[in-house]
């Protein structure tokens, strides 16, 4: 809630300079590069993934510029193929998959459960270094020509036909994958073993449940793509022939192995965002989330069922009708927990006391866009429809609605919501609301036309559509939207940076939100809490927090 509208009495804020916190405890580059403080590591990730977001976004811009005209006139075919490949690889592996877990998860998981740090702080730092090494390899790969297989690098094109540097790109993703695995490992052990006294599973914030489910997927899924990359690299480098039909291999085996990870991967990208949105909606409706246990278990259900649906990416790939039936059915099963979440979020608004601060605007945006994206998943799971729209812009629109409309909106909402805690400053609320609106509008304009393009038959990964000039109008709309979206993303970069120096200092709990992280200072001290918290209340205790008679005195001293 905004400070002006709903003043909560807070004890006087000591001037920022006087109080020691994790930001000013030590200075110097090595205190950052060798830190084991989960909060500093979170900021290291924040910088790095923002960098890769720009790289991926730059490629997106080139794609949309090329598609303004039906003729391939901006770049050559090979270049375009590399551009969309790098856009996908960078955005998936170096932005979306780490984003919320590595930034918000790293920062908040120990705070939310009342711990001093994650279970393995040095492994946490190693995670970041692995990410950086993977990122450096990917940058080098891009600068020396890139790869042109699509982020899905299907065999036998990737193993036997392309001349680009698959092995290096594969190595980059392999290394980044280990970063992901170690983050997941850290979270699982931390959540199991480091909860403060009284913090039972049922009292955990749903953000934690979401990250727990995400970590399970990271742990069990990522190794499979790791070994798939090993096989592809071995086939390329040593001419082995595991996926090459000319040597008795099966290209479909590649697809099964690839999608076995890459489908659960999309749940790695969305579940944390759902966790963020849950926290935001509860706070800005001033009430406990509706159906806590259903929301918690739906996260687990998504993680479990998410492993059972991979071949819905392969309905026309040459699998049997019977396999297709099974995977179609299971895909509807996995849709259900997500629907349950949407209904629970909506029900939380009922009889709430709703504030429209920027985080909540992002959450509303998430609700709208994720719902549309999820509903279009129902189209894709229907076998008869999928045959027509798979490999077209319909799919592109679907996954961007979820990954960008869903995951990125949630990420931005979370950054704003916890910005006071992370930085000790308030961001400028007016600009933040404006940015949320611009992102929402720009996003819809970019991606809604793509549903139409897809049903009409425009295939994906085409840089030249001069045979179908009738597709141009919608493509132009999409590009126009993309420029607006770009502006919407640039704004927070600017004002968040600005706020680090010029923003108003934040109190411990500017939102009067529930959760242990709000009971310590903004920013928190290095070891998070002056005294280990003992939890005797349920999660989302907004009733208590909003009780008019008592003055909420933060535990942190």
């Amino acid at each position, binding site marked *: 809630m905004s400070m002006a509208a709903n003043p909560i009495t807070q004890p006087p804020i000591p001037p920022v300079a006087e109080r020691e916190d994790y930001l000013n405890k030590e200075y110097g580059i090595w205190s950052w590069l060798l830190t084991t403080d989960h909060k500093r590591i979170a900021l290291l990730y924040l910088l790095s993934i923002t960098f890769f977001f720009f790289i991926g976004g730059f490629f997106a811009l080139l794609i949309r510029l090329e598609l303004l005209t039906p003729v391939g006139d901006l770049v050559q075919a090979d270049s375009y193929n590399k551009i969309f490949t790098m856009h996908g690889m960078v955005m998936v592996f170096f932005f979306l998959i780490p984003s919320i877990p590595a930034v918000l998860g790293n920062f908040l998981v120990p705070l939310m459960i009342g711990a001093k740090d994650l279970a393995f702080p040095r492994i946490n730092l190693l995670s970041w270094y692995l990410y950086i090494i993977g990122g450096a390899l990917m940058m080098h790969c891009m600068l020396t020509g890139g790869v042109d297989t699509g982020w899905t690098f299907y065999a036998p094109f990737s193993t036997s036909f392309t001349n680009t540097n698959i092995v290096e790109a594969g190595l980059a993703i392999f290394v980044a994958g280990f970063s992901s*695995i170690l983050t997941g490992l850290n979270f699982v052990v931390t959540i199991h073993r*480091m909860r403060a006294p009284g913090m039972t599973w049922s009292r955990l914030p749903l953000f934690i449940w979401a990250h727990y489910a995400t970590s399970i997927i990271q*742990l*069990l*899924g990522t190794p*499979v793509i790791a*070994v798939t990359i090993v096989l592809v690299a071995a*086939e390329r480098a040593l001419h082995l022939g595991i996926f090459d039909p000319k040597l008795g291999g099966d290209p479909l085996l590649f697809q099964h192995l690839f999608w076995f990870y890459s489908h659960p991967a999309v749940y790695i990208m969305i579940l944390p965002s759902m966790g963020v949105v849950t926290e935001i909606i509860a706070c800005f409706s001033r009430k406990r989330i509706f159906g806590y246990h259903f929301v918690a278990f739906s996260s687990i259900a998504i993680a479990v069922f998410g492993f059972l649906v991979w071949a819905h990416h392969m309905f026309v790939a040459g699998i049997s009708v019977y396999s297709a039936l099974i995977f179609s059915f299971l895909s509807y099963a996995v849709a259900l927990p997500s629907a349950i979440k949407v209904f629970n979020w909506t029900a939380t608004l009922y009889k709430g006391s709703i504030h429209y601060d920027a985080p909540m605007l992002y959450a509303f945006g998430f609700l709208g866009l994720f719902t549309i994206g999820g509903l279009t998943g129902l189209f894709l799971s229907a076998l008869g429809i999928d045959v027509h729209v798979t490999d077209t812009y319909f799919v592109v629109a679907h996954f961007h609605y979820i990954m960008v409309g869903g995951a990125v909106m949630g990420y931005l909402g979370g950054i704003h919501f916890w910005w006071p805690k992370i930085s000790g400053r308030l961001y400028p609320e007016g600009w933040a609301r404006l940015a949320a609106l611009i992102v929402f509008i720009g996003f819809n304009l970019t991606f809604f036309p793509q549903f139409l393009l897809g049903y009409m038959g425009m295939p994906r990964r085409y840089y030249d559509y001069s045979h179908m000039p009738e597709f141009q109008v919608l493509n132009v709309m999409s590009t126009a939207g993309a420029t607006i979206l770009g502006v919407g993303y640039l704004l927070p970069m600017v004002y968040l940076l600005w706020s680090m120096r010029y923003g108003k200092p934040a109190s411990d709990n500017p939102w009067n939100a529930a959760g242990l992280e709000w009971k310590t200072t903004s920013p928190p001290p290095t070891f998070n809490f002056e005294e*280990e918290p003992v939890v005797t209340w349920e999660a989302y205790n907004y009733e208590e927090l909003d009780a008019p008679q008592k003055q909420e005195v933060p535990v942190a001293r």
Partner: protein
Amino acid sequence: MHDSSTTAVHEHHGEAHVAHNPALLHHFAEEQQQRNAASLGMWVFLATEVMFFGGLFCAYLVYRRWYFGDFAAASKSINMAMGATNTAVLICSSLTVVLAVWAAQTARRTLLIVSLILTMLLGMVFLGIKGIEYRDKFVEHHVPGASFSFENEPIPGHPGEYANPRHAQMFFSLYFVMTGLHALHMIIGLGIFTWLLIMAWKGRFSPEWHTPVEIGGLYWHFVDIVWIYLFPLLYLIDRHA
């Protein structure tokens, strides 16, 4: 790939703090919690390793089903005696690992050091035998690639039939990737045990704190179990035929 999460290095802080075992890291409330965390961490990591090898096993099982006869012929050409020896070697090394853990638990420093050394020696024997096997395959032109050759090899149990070299090459591709990755894990295991040996020599382990030995041991047992699966799958196809 992943190093143990705890060391015995103790960082002193200026402030007074409660005396505790130097190995207790400050973000843990107590030693039991740290031990539990390390143990859970290693089990979870091993789960990821199961998934890693699992993908390979999956690919292997698919092709074995399709090209059974050719795989049987190829399997016959790898040295079962050496494979069996290696299996025995690893099982013995698991015994020495268990001894090492017990020794750490019961403050038997000498036994601990001896067990660790024996484990590493057995691991090196394993790798040595593996190296000989690889060399044999190289000499026989069974290494996939340009010089691969597998002509006129009979399919066990099917007189007059010969294996399809392309399918046999598939066997060898998977053989080298699977045993190669396994060997890589062994080498990493040797690295871990070297470090454990150094720590044991310096007397860092005690009955109160020997977590690295336990979780290092867990890792070694896992690598052993992977081999227990690899051996029959790769070496023993259709041997009765």
